[in-house]
């Protein structure tokens, strides 16, 4: 199966190891992975801030970059969620509507792709440690992915998966919200950090690096010794 990696700008620039894990994981499962070099950012930072015209420029670039892809798979519920919103944004646009529908229809978040498209639940990976999982908002509520990450994690040998209290609550990231409403965002992430501590987990796992950087950044600020790990890191682990 031919898969185009949608790296997301954050995982391209800040946390590139996530991309490596994603590529290795897909290849191990027999996918032929390519990386369309013209991809940039999904446009979400501008879109959610109200800069529709600016965000559309980014979106058009993404549609151009993935025009010929069969499947587009990315390690982020939120960024893939943005691609899935393109049809609404370009509805009625004679030039782009079709492209938007085309991209949205073939785009998948990585855990969703593994479980729903490849039909895999056990990757055959091993990871020893106490783990809790934060189901990020856009992954859950926009993409409707509720079970796939848990299904995959439960099949990893050695993982002691502990439920995160009030897991569905937002971590307070929210794109520019974290900067614009830093007081409220700060209170939200403090609460999330508290909930993570309550689990006693050594690793906080998630499917969106932005949320993990938010929570993880708070936890290091508080001097807590909880490591963050993107779910692909756990799934691509073998000892």
């Amino acid at each position, binding site marked *: 199966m031919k898969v185009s990696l949608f790296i997301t700008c954050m995982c391209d620039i800040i946390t590139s190891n996530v991309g490596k894990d994603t*590529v290795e994981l897909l290849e191990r499962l027999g996918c032929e992975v390519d990386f369309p070099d013209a991809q940039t950012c999904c446009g979400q930072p501008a879109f959610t801030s*109200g800069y529709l015209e600016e965000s559309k*420029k980014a979106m058009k670039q993404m549609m151009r970059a993935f025009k010929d892809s069969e499947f587009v798979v990315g390690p982020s519920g939120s960024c893939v969620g943005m691609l899935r919103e393109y049809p609404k944004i370009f509805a009625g646009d004679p030039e782009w509507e079709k492209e938007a529908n085309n991209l949205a229809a073939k785009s998948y978040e990585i855990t969703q792709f593994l479980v729903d498209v490849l039909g895999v639940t056990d990757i055959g990976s091993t990871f020893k440690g106490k783990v809790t999982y934060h189901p990020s908002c856009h992954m859950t509520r926009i993409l409707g992915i509720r079970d796939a990450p848990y299904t995959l994690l439960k099949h990893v040998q050695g993982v002691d998966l502990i439920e995160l209290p009030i897991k569905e609550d937002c971590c307070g990231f929210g794109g520019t919200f974290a900067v614009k409403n830093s007081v409220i965002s700060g209170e939200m992430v403090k609460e999330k950090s508290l909930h993570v501590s309550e689990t006693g987990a050594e690793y906080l796992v998630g499917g969106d690096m932005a949320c993990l950087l938010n929570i993880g950044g708070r936890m290091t600020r508080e001097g807590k010794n909880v490591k963050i790990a993107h779910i692909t890191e756990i799934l691509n682990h073998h000892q």
Partner: protein
Amino acid sequence: MSIKISNAPYNERVQEGVKNDFMRKAVASAQGRFRSGRQKQADELGNWEDWRTLGEEIRTHTLRNIDYYLEILSENVSKRGGNVFFAKTAEEANEYIQHIIKKKNAKKVVKSKSMVTEEIGLNDALAEVGAEVVESDLGEWILQLDEDLPSHIVTPALHKNKEQVRETFAVKKGYEQSDKPEELASFARQQLRQEFLAADVGITGCNFAVAESGAVTFVTNEGNARMVTTIPDTQISVMGMERIVPTWEELDILVSLLTRAAVGQKLTSYITSITGTRLEGESDGPEEYHLVIVDNGRSKILGTEFQSALHCIRCAACINVCPVYRHVGGHAYGSIYPGPIGAVITPLLDGYEDHKELPYASSLCGACTEVCPVKIPLHEQLIRHRQIIVERENKGNKMEKLAMKGFAKWASSPAAYKLSAAAARPALQPWSKNEMIKSGPGPLKGWTINRDFPAPAKQTFRSWYKNRQKGREV
């Protein structure tokens, strides 16, 4: 009062909310209970999504034909002896009600809880014509005695603790017992019973009016709306114009959605539907009845992309799941309508000028949209507000605007993107220590007030990938 409830700047209101530990604990605990109650009811039905679909279809149809249904309603109320007054503005509604109060020479008015009367500032208007107004909902009565404002549309005194309530009762009403909620409520029952009996006029809001027969329905637990509609000889119901259903059959659905979504009850203790005046031979109920149908900015929303915001049935489910509301409380919104729905409708009803921060008071997590029993896409409407603030109102932050212009150039040009991606790490080097940024420059500053940010990776993904491909080709 009106929609706007504070002159303090947004940031100040937020700070004040965040600092109020008691309020935050109370709100967090209340949200927990509301959420589990709502969830339990949804789970028990098993087909909650069908109920939401039905709720949405009913609201959509009704709003699209609202002129028709309001006409039918007014005919039916009139046939049953009620007067109907259509008020375009808050002022028109208040003047009409003042006129009735004066005509009746009313000294005492007893009210049941109503958001729309808060919205139009009715109590102040009644005071102007010398009528004493008594709020009879326990929470509203507490706030009235304490000269405080509601912070939640269903449980208005959520931010107050029982010690504060005891103190208020003691100072204002000579209360001498403990701060046990039962004793406080029992005292309120005795006091308010006398008020009901002495009232010249009763004023209610309206949860839903049934167009086909003219029944105006109230959803309560305490029974105060029943008292108000049973005892005084003159009664006035004030309804927001969108609070209407075609027939009794749709009333069933919306009431079922409301009580479940609001308080996790299958039905509240009292669902009371009154139609016009009392009939011949009846000893209770109104001899004179007025229904005041209020626009006050709602019609501006009709026919716009925000029309579905008028579907709102004021259940507060969105408020009860909102993490922003949990940390700042209701007063921080500076509007009589707080939370996600407040952030959507306040700028629509009262303009962007005073409320332009509200659409940003959301992380867009979508929890509100997920629970809304009539499927209002709340978080999407918040984004749409942001677009309007930026594009039409031109009230966006100037620096942000520049940054977004830059973003568009960056993200639409792979070459520019690649250059900057490679430059990110060296650019942030001065602020990085042990691969972590503790205090960042520019926009990163807002982030690093509360948390660390990692230094960009030593090698971008795309450069790793390129090298890997090269290695393979060799």
